[in-house]
């Protein structure tokens, strides 16, 4: 029998919420353990091994010491999966990139002398693929548990996972929600990648764009929505300040 792929989970600068989503799979983790071996997952287990096939990496990359650690992980892994918005697009950690690292250091640490202390040597926030090549992306803040299962199962079975390349509006319509624009809110759904089951608008809250932006051409299907509210792709793009700071239109899994 073919050996099960060995999976290791790592985290960098983030809230660890996406790892927690994995723990929140509860009994369904048992189905995953049928097809993969989890050999390292610091948040929930003591055991650790450097011998793994699939590295799942959560979090943004902030410091030279973190880049070193990430490169080491990449060198051990055959496949690297970026987990959650902090890893896939830099997430909210990129908000601070509108200032220079020195400025934020001063704002938060005051005049404390941290020169030469590598723990405090901070670069601009980077997504994982700005440091090492990434093979697969599991989007969202937090991730969607079903999509996580789909991606990991596909990789374990040697198939390419299917990640939506259409806007959140498609899933929002399926849920028969009233359009957030109709309610007077500004929603990033028309240009944000679907796959979250439109969970925010379904809870009567506008989309914040956590799954990253789709390309302009892929918003063709929501032309009507944009026309009705007299908006362009660029108009909405300019409002993407929480999750897509400094990002151009993108399809990161290309």
């Amino acid at each position, binding site marked *: 029998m073919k050996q099960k792929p060995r999976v290791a989970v790592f985290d960098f600068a*983030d*809230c660890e919420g996406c790892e*927690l989503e994995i723990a929140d799979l509860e009994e369904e983790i048992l189905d995953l353990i049928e097809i993969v071996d989890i050999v390292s997952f610091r948040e929930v287990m003591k055991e650790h091994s450097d011998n793994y096939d699939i590295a799942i990496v959560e979090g943004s990359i902030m410091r030279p010491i973190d880049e070193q650690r990430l490169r080491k992980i990449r060198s051990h892994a055959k496949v690297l999966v970026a987990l959650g918005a902090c890893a896939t697009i830099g997430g909210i950690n990129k908000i601070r990139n509108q200032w220079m690292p020195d400025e934020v250091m001063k704002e938060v640490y005051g005049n404390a002398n941290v020169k030469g202390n590598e723990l405090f040597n901070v670069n601009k926030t980077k997504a994982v693929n700005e440091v090492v090549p990434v093979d697969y992306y599991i989007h969202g803040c937090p991730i969607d548990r079903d999509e996580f299962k789909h991606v990991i199962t596909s990789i374990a079975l040697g198939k390419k996972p299917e990640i939506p390349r259409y806007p959140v509006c498609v899933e929002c319509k399926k849920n028969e929600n009233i359009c957030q624009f109709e309610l007077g809110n500004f929603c990033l759904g028309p240009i944000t990648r679907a796959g979250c089951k439109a969970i925010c608008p379904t809870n009567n809250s506008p989309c914040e764009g956590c799954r990253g932006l789709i390309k302009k051409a892929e918003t063709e299907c929501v032309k009507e929505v944009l026309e009705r509210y007299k908006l362009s792709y660029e108009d909405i793009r300019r409002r993407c300040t*929480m999750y897509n700071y400094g990002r151009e239109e993108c399809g990161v899994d290309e």
Partner: protein
Amino acid sequence: MSKDFSIHVEHVTRVEGHGNITLNVKNGSIEKLEWSVVEAPRFFEAMLRGQQFNELRPITSRICGICSIGHSLASLKATEDALGVKLSEQTELFRRLAIHAENMQSHILHIGYLVAPDLLGVGSVFPLIGSKHTDTVLKIVKLHRLANEMSDLICGRTIHPIRLVVGGFSMFPTEKQLVHLQKRLEEARSLTQELATVIHSVADKLPAFERETEYIALSTPKEYAFYDGDLTSTDTGTLKDYKKYQEITNEYLVPQSTAKYAKHHRDSYMVGALARFNLNSKQLHPAAQDVAKLFGLKAINYNPFMNTIAQLVEFMHNIEDSLQLIDTVLNQGIKDEKPVKPKVQAGRGVGLVEVPRGLLIHDYTLNSKGYCTKANCIIPTNQNHANIQKDMEKLVPEIINRPEKEIELTLEMLVRAYDPCISCSTHYLDVTFV
């Protein structure tokens, strides 16, 4: 007894975030003993500058995956305090349900997935499946799932809630959904009692260690405080003006950590379930008091390892109080209330809540257009770092003659007992080195 050895635990496992333990012993005496936080700094307070008041809640929720509901509530309370928003009774009731749901999911995660493996002698919860403890694991899973589904129902999502917005809720559950939740919470009562019996049977694995320290938590004559209360210390009593919280939470920076430390009346203080228990245990629901009795837990208890037991006690209280809140809500009927629209104005607001790991404070200053010009967040785990260090300094000499592996495990268990949330704790403002 003289011996040389060193212990270095890099990235303590089964805790949230990255922390290290270093112990060097030479000729039987301690040369170095250090608890250090090596998590990358995250600069939340800097990122909040220039954000509009509506955005502060969704951004600060991302400080922590485990206590995102708590951060959301502290954030909303600070924002609403600054803008002078008066909330409806229904919103106040549902916010209390939200905080119970989060406390339950976080506590059961800690008790079941993070601490129980130590008590049962394994490295994680995975090997327990298929062992004689399968039944216990399934109980834990069932309670964890219930707490998560309760969070989903009240907040729209467990991790990074959606429905919690400035002025109220973007959406409420239906009465039918609440009736269903009520039934499941009733079932959870007996499951929790059964789990308490199992934990009690292995509770002798919790080290009998004590160190007198100061405990700080919110407290109010009205209820066992989670959502609201006055800042209270076991040493100095109640602080009258909540906006002067910095008189208590004096934060400072140490070179080995990217997280701040805090001290008040002594070298260190503790926040969290044990601190709340020590201050407010008389207000616990009788069923929760019974759990405390089973373990002989009485206020004041100075054993930090008992924090996990205090969490179990609180878990029972959360169930009972949620049932009462749901009763009240159902008797009144759920109204389709829209969030209160705030009058945008300049001002400073401070929000205090008790989250699973202890006292959490958000403090925002808004300008006349409702944009944030200054922010400060005081995180429970930061308040506990110094207490962890001081505990280690008392604990190690007491166990120094034991085998190295045992010392290492005991130190790890100590850190875990505090249920630290290290991602949360790396953020700071206006700090000075000592």
